[in-house]
């Protein structure tokens, strides 16, 4: 991360999470056969979200989500959608991999995660890791499913 990046400022990162929670991006499910969909409900908490993605020719054209979820789940899913829309499946996989490394407190590439580095400290609250990954797990599964169909 560049020394002077705004993303080094915890205040900015906190604002980002708040913003994505209060005004989540891509937060509208669609009725469209081109979209694959995943419903994610946690047994142990209230989080219950649905993620949809339209993947065409190896490119993630669109992602949408909705549901009932805490700040961390909502904001992390919202940022995930921003990050992955218009990416190729290969690019998306790399980003997801780096994100998972960050959440698991391993070395990761901060630059490609952009705003999503706001969740860099979630590993300190073990019980919230599932919140920070629920939407990401959904897109991972959708990508897998799309690959199955294309094979």
């Amino acid at each position, binding site marked *: 991360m560049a020394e002077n990046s705004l993303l080094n400022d*915890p*205040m900015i*990162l*906190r604002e980002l*999470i*708040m913003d994505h*929670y*209060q005004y989540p991006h891509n937060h509208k499910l669609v009725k469209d056969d081109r979209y694959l969909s995943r419903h994610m409900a946690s047994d*142990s*908490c*209230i989080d219950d979200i649905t993620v949809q993605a339209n993947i065409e020719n190896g490119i993630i054209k669109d992602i949408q989500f909705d549901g*009932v*979820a*805490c*700040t*961390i789940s909502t904001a992390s899913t919202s940022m995930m959608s921003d990050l992955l829309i218009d990416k190729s499946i290969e690019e998306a996989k790399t980003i997801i991999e780096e994100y998972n490394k960050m959440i698991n407190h391993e070395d990761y590439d901060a630059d490609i995660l952009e705003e999503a580095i*706001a*969740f860099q*400290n*979630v590993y*300190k*609250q073990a019980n*919230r890791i599932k*919140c920070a990954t629920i939407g990401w797990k959904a897109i991972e599964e959708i990508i897998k499913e799309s690959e199955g169909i294309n094979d």
Partner: protein
Amino acid sequence: MFNVNDVRNDFPMIKNHPDLIYFDNGATTYKPQVVIDAITKFYTDYTSNVERGDYETAIQADRAYEEARKCVATLIHSEQKEVVFLSNITAALNQIAYGLSKKLNKGDVILTSKSEHASNLLPWYRLKDNLGVEIKYVNVDDVGRIDIDDFKNQCDENVKVVTFASVTNVLGTNQPVKELTKIAHDNGAIVVIDAAQAIGHQPIDVKDLDVDFLCFSSHKMCGPDGVGVLYGKYNLLDEMDPLLLGGGMNARFTSDGKVVLKDAPHKFEAGTPNIEGVIGLSAACKYLMDLGLDNIHAYEKELRGYMKEKFKELDNVIVYNLENESGPITFNVKDVFAQDAAGYLAANHIAVRSGNHCAKILHEIIGTDQSVRASLYFYNTKEEVDYFVEKVKEINLESAIGIFF
């Protein structure tokens, strides 16, 4: 009345975590040293199986096990032989539902409420699926208290079982058990009480209440995990079939498959029981009775009242059960998801519970499917309440997210 500082010294968890404010007593309670010691003594001094020994330590274990039955009987004012040890209240409610299923037919009604814990609904739902009995819900008010008039109306000749928690788990509302039991009995129904949240918090007298069955878990009354109590009127226990079959519960059997069971309560305790658990529970009963259940209840009411007054001054919360006299305070911070609020409190060394608390249909009554529950016990203090309320006041979206930075 006991001195709370003396009481706190009895609990190693409090000594080991002086900065942790434990307000999750509805989930489980801390254990006093006497309970831990009783369990250790069993393992270091007289480990043996029960009900089958000819030697000294086995006799000692047997005596401690039956002594525990007597202690529980004293606590709830029952006969010793009316106390069955199972693994928790969930096992007890499953046993009762199974046992009563033999008496139920299609079209019979089980009357309950929407404030119930999963453990007191799912075993009955199975009877609905298997036997075609009907589950009906009595109307409750906005804190989940059963509407007596509606209860009277619904208690017709089809109602064969009435079941509810004497203190509900999310809102801590006390039900008028004695009055409801009388109405149910006048209509020939059997009354099953889930006392999970009442036991150890207030005196319970099964004879006075006249309930048919009442059950609870040891871990919510300062006792160990993995042991629960099923109380039943002896004639009902006598005619009830056990759910589990095996060793320890049969008197004799022959190769043609004929089995003669022991008498209740033993016929319900198949297999080697949780002996350490039962012995620990026994010590917990003594500990609570020494403090006095009246004293414990009075102390908790005072603390709850104190917390209520403090909560009235907060303008960032919605409280679902403010006016209740005892039990937890259940609330949400405005615009903050329950788990985020609990996360902020956890970061400030306060343990509370967020979520739907296993009462997944209660939201039909209180209009929210998630909340934060702060549940007290007699070892909590006004100073803890002060600090807690101060921290609740600080919660907003910004501070809740702030814990991640």
